[in-house]
């Protein structure tokens, strides 16, 4: 067995591009550690009662809660403060939410990996309980009664025997003088007393959103600001051969053009390079750019052809790869002969295409930079900007606006670095705006993959040995030039953690070159690993003539915790301790069973163009089962009348936002499966806008997505991503049920289903 890489995504990023100090929220660095010379203060920390970086209370009773995670549509800006407000016994109408700047005092701020709730639920509970405890102590002291006779209730402390009450605001001056109680001294509210956690609430920003007041990255304006639109090299790593900017400069409002250096490998989050057109308005910059004439030296990736590359990937997975999990002895079982099933699956490159394209404003002044950006990771902005302009990251202040979608793209702050480089050179604040074409042409793409599956099956069609092998240009290539092998976390997302109860399992991976920037896209490699594995499981069920759901439950076995460590696998488990967040196949069984019940599984026979498909997948420590209903007409056009999503994410903080994430994931999955494809010819991306990179629209999205939340006392886990992977497989399985045609390649737009 080959060596198993033991670098998790976190450790790796921490070491190579260091996206920030990975301190736990409970172990924040003292305020003085960072704030010297930093003029920005939150209102929370300016408030007299400020026992936590996340929370402050003013004498007028206003509670300020700081969200340090980015809001890209998950509702996290509402949900984390709800946790603190609940423990504080606050009146929600008196809570003001603030967005934290990039600052390691908050702990990790990289809003990816569906882990904001998982990693910061406790920290926000502590913040709320700490402030409540201090307010209660202050009231008890004022009344000269034991604290045990006092309780907190809706923004007041009540002395229970006498019924006396004091408002939080009144108590702030006295409470602020008290020592901050240690975490182990805190008492938390019992679940029965929760007022916000688990309850239906409105999202904090809804009213600003529907009135157009909500501020996204593109909405930032600074005095004296100029606008920049950048022509990037069409091929990754290309350089400028010649520029004729006379036409561009002749456009009214265009001030000048600026050449930007192409990055030195690895590309990391560095600017791509190119030519920036600088103008006094967005329109002039865009118009000027159309007149720009640039010739390029294409460089090493000009030979990237998607058609040939697909064939290469498909061939790679037919050959032995590096072994990452080896349970039992697959080869010995294969050698026994018997019935063999084999299938190879393929998924193409895809783009994030968040509705707000990358954009940022940067202001370089006196050796410091201030950035306003829609970013998933303001600490990475500090680092990328600092590296790009040659200053210390402490001299970079990053304000986080709302994000018009993120899906992983906005964890990579190349566009912020562009704005900073230009601002330094021009001596003015600069807004960089990417067009949709820039976004589609120069994404950190969701990678393309081939996955091969082979199994021998027994008399009932159950696998006795299972080999699976993936190959894909890895995210590793973004951090190490010419990396052909994934970081181990990329395989921990749906490959090595295959949950089925099979005696012999081997997981392998083969090498693949990256010719474009590869990044994490919602659910990352879970998407293709889950699509392949759970399609293949369904192929086994069908080959045995068994019911898909009954077969899956049989395949999972009675349920247990899978101990990958005992199998020699160093599994990163999404950066969470495996003891607290085990791979528990009982939970997978439960979501499957519930999904079957809610979908009316087995009540109507599939076929004749109608069908149901099912799959379940654990990702980001959360368990989701999906049942997809399809209706396929004589021309092969697929409609999705309904999807049932059943999610077990432990304790649910914000049920409405969990439902929203499950609804949205289902829509994105169906869109991705239908038409989500990016292709290259001569290293140039062929798609450019929503006409040829099509995403789900109202008329082809699933008509109805029903979401069922499993009641649970388990630790809360994330929901931003796990709703996507099982839908891909369940959709393919539904198409098979409806038509007898097995989907092994996406997008569906390339398949003949009629």
């Amino acid at each position, binding site marked *: 067995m080959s060596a198993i890489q033991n670098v998790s995504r976190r450790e790796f990023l921490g070491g190579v591009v260091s996206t920030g100090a990975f301190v736990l929220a409970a172990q924040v660095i003292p305020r003085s550690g960072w704030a010297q010379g930093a003029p920005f203060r939150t209102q929370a920390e300016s408030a007299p009662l400020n026992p936590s970086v996340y929370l402050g209370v003013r004498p007028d009773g206003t509670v300020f809660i700081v969200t340090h995670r980015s809001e*890209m*549509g*998950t*509702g996290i800006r509402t949900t984390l403060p709800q946790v603190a407000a609940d423990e504080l016994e606050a009146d929600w109408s008196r809570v003001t939410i603030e967005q934290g700047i990039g600052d390691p005092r908050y702990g990790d701020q990289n809003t990816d990996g569906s882990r904001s709730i998982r990693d910061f639920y406790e920290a926000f509970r502590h913040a709320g309980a700490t402030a409540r405890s201090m307010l209660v102590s202050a009231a008890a002291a004022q009344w000269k009664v034991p604290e045990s006779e006092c309780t907190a209730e809706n923004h007041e402390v009540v002395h229970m025997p006498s019924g006396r009450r004091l408002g939080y605001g009144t108590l702030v001056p006295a409470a602020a003088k008290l020592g901050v109680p240690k975490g182990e001294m805190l008492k938390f509210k019992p679940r029965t007393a929760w007022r916000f956690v688990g309850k239906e609430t*409105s*999202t904090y*920003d*809804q*009213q600003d*959103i*529907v*009135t*157009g*007041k*909500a*501020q*996204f990255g*593109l*909405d930032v*304006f600074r005095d004296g600001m100029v*606008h920049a639109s950048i022509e990037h090299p069409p091929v990754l790593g290309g350089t400028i051969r010649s520029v004729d900017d006379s036409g561009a400069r002749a456009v009214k*409002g265009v001030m000048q053009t600026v050449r930007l250096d192409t990055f030195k490998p690895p590309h990391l989050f560095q600017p791509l390079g190119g030519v920036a057109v600088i103008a006094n*308005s*967005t*329109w002039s910059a865009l*118009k000027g750019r159309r007149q720009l004439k640039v010739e390029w030296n294409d460089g090493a990736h000009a030979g990237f052809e998607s058609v040939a590359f697909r064939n290469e990937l498909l061939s790679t997975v037919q050959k032995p790869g590096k072994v990452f999990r080896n349970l039992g002895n697959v080869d010995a079982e294969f050698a026994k002969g018997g019935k063999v099933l084999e299938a190879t699956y393929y998924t193409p490159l895809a783009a994030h*295409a*968040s*509705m*707000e*394209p990358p954009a940022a404003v940067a202001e370089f002044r006196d050796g410091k930079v201030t950035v306003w950006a829609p970013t998933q990771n303001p600490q990475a902005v500090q680092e990328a900007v600092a590296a790009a302009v040659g200053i210390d990251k402490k001299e970079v202040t990053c304000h986080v606006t*709302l*994000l*018009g*979608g*993120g*899906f992983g793209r906005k964890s990579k702050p190349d566009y912020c670095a562009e704005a900073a480089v230009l601002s330094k050179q021009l001596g003015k604040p600069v807004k960089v705006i990417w*067009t*949709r074409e820039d976004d589609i042409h120069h994404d950190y793409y969701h990678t393309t993959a081939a996955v091969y599956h082979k199994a021998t099956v027994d008399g009932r069609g159950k696998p006795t040995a299972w080999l699976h092998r993936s190959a894909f240009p890895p995210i590793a290539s973004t951090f190490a030039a010419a990396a052909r092998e994934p970081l181990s976390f990329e395989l921990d997302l749906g490959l090595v953690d295959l949950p089925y109860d099979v005696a012999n399992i081997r997981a392998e991976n083969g090498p693949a070159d990256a010719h474009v920037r590869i990044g994490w896209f919602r659910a990352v490699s879970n998407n293709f690993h889950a699509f392949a594995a759970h399609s293949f499981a369904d192929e086994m069920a069908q080959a045995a003539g068994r019911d898909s759901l009954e077969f899956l439950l049989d395949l999972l076995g009675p349920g247990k915790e899978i101990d990958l460590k005992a199998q020699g696998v160093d599994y990163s488990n999404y950066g969470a301790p495996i003891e607290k967040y085990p791979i528990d196949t009982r939970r997978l069984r439960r979501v499957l069973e519930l999904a079957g019940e809610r979908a009316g599984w087995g009540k109507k026979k599939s076929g004749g163009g109608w069908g149901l498909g099912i799959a379940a997948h654990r990702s980001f420590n959360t368990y989701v089962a999906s049942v997809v209903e399809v209706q396929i007409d004589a021309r092969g056009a697929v409609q999705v009348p309904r999807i049932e999503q059943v999610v077990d994410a432990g304790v649910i903080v914000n049920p*409405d936002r969990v439902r*929203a*994430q499950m*609804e*949205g*994931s*289902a*829509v*994105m999955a169906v869109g991705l499966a239908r038409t989500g494809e990016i292709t290259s010819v001569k290293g140039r991306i062929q798609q450019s*806008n*929503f*006409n040829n990179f099509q*995403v789900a*629209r*109202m*008329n082809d*999205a*699933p*008509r*109805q*997505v029903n979401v069922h939340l499993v009641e649970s006392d388990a630790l809360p886990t994330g929901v931003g991503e796990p709703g996507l992977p099982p839908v891909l497989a369940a959709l393919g399985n539904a198409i098979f049920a409806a038509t007898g045609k097995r989907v092994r390649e996406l997008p569906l737009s390339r398949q003949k289903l009629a």
Partner: protein
Amino acid sequence: MVNFTVNGTVRAFDDDPDMPLLWYLRDDLRLTGTRFGCGAGLCGACTVHVDGLAVRSCQTPVRTLQNKRVVTIEGLSADGRHRVQRAWTTLNVAQCGYCQTGQIMTAAALLTRIANPSDQDIDQAMTGNICRCGTYQRIRSAVKAAAKEQA
């Protein structure tokens, strides 16, 4: 010189007549609720009303607006409580929220044309507006909820 109104205010425009209304609204008037999504009339994020009809402001050069009446999300209602906006907040439609102002403008124009739109009417009107977060089923519910209220 192009003369028109934006949210009831008279505007006299004498800049580049090819400038799309989108950039005039955003950069000059700072009415940033009208969003840039594609620049090609493909996504609907920039939807505004011109003489009551939903149009894509990224595809509407200012020179075409002589004597026209432009309404943006900021002018849809005086208090942000237009029945479509109320339905949107009641149903917690928005996720990231970026496209929703365009969705609301399209929906409001639809309800002016058709008081009680069918599913098919809603699909037809709203399919030009992309929501990458995938809020379509709530959008459909919100349009129906708004239709039930009196204008």
